[in-house]
């Protein structure tokens, strides 16, 4: 199971980059296509708000690949270490 957790980390990192790339590409296409302020605001909000989330997913994948999820903490002491 730990091997799956570890190598799936690569999938989460790829998903973070891939999904954000698709979001940006769609945003640019839609802004160019529609052209008015509404589209810029809508897609701008998506691009800004999902950037930290994509970074978070990448970090999650990286931590998984490092094996940090092989063992989940059983007490607060472990969380704070």
């Amino acid at each position, binding site marked *: 199971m730990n091997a799956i*957790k570890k190598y799936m980390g690569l999938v989460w990192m790829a998903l973070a980059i891939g999904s954000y790339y698709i979001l940006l590409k769609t945003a640019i296409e839609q802004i160019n296509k529609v052209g008015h302020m*509404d589209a810029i605001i809508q897609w701008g909000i998506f691009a800004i708000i999902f950037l930290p989330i994509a970074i978070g997913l990448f*970090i*999650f994948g990286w931590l998984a690949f490092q094996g940090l999820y092989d063992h989940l903490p059983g007490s607060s002491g472990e969380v704070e*270490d």
Partner: protein
Amino acid sequence: MWAIIFILTTQTNPNNCMQSTAEKKQIRKVIFASSVGTLIEWYDFYIFGSLAPIIAAQFFPKTDPTAALLSTLATFAAGFIVRPFGALVFGRLGDKVGRKYTFLLTLVLMGGSTFAIGLIPGYEKIGFLAPILVLLLRLIQGLALGGEYGGAATYVAEHSPSERRGFYTSWIQTTATLGLLLSLGIILITRKSLDADAAESIKAFESWGWRIPFWFSLVLVGMSIYIRLKMHESPLFSKLKAEGKTSVNPIKESLLNKGNLKMVLLALFGATMGQGVVWYTGQFYAQTFLENVCKVDFEQSRTILIWAIIFATPLFIVFGQLSDRIGRKWIIMAGLLLAVVSYRPIYQQMLQITSTENLVKDPSTVSIQRMIQPVKGKDFSLQTTTTSQPYPNGITEKTVHADTVYANGSEMPVKTDKVSKVLPDNTYWAIVALIFVQIVLVTMVYGPIAAFLVEIFPTKIRYTSMSLPYHLGNGVFGGLTPFIAVLLGTMYTGDKLVGLWYPIGVSLVCLVIGVIYLSNRIDPDVKD
């Protein structure tokens, strides 16, 4: 009904004998005081969403209706997007100052901003200042809600015995749905009671009566503040404070400590993001879909949701209690799996049974009503033509067409036709059943999640740590669901169900992460 469920579930659990009568009485008080306040905050937050089309007409430039709706949803979405910031600001306060005073503050902010929205003059009177003020107050609402939920869930959990934590916190979990129910109920009652004539009442509601549900918030918040002032601080937090062990910088400890950060990320990607999209698909997108895609009548689309919520809400308690016996993980994962496989068939069915395409129209059954209303001080009148066309499947399609009629007799169309369908009883209840199934999924993913979040973080940074993934998942992923789904529908017009790929995709990723990485362990001790 709630009292009966509470008494039954309290008496039938064998573990319950471990609690004394005084303890039970105390926890009931805690649950009641926390739940009432949280319910009111959800009410405040959702009346805005439930009144989105009316708010669009009042505060945004009237270009085309879709643009107006999207602008409102954007404002609605703004409330969701700032929720994680509220979680950080008030979470920090809650972990430093205490749970009780923090969620009193969020209640005051929420009530004040909701009341103020009801006072803003329309776009026609104060121009762009109107939408700007709405947006600012909406942001305050979002910040307040970001601070509220984590506090209430933490407060109840820290009063609960370990073997009943899922059950007790599930009462807090009912508040979001009941807040939505209350907002729908108040809106419908107000809409019907402004005039003896139904049409005049609706007209008055759309003109000024929509403000009443916002003003009503002040009464509710006043009651809740009174109740909450009588509460004591959480015993675990008080102990921590007395020992001088509270966190100096909860945000830093939550996000920069690798051990805690990994749990924040796991909670977000393995549980709350899926929970968020399931919640908002079942209870918000369903309503948007009924009204905008299936074209179901305003009142029916809302009463359908009300019935489904009433039937399904007790299941929050059932799944919360079940999670105390079998663990939180698999209930949440089962809810996500069912959402992934059932959304498209459910929505396909909703579309199919409300469709009038390819049905034979009988011209002899058409009824047409014309109403001409003079406009004060103008040389024209407004003519409204309502055409009612019954179909063989029992659905009556109403088309409202408005024209400006000038004194010289010439006519000019002013609005596009507005189509709405009135459903017969069998179709109405079939839709209630389909929405009910979606809300059952909500109860599965949402009922146990407060206990799950409380158990994975330590007391001294719990408020901050659990609030952040909750509001990112529920607020950002979930809150944007209706907005993204509507947007997808406008981009890919060939598929009416295209908007569902967003909640399905997010639920699927969350399901895989949750199944692989989450533990099903129930923490026996949240006091550390």
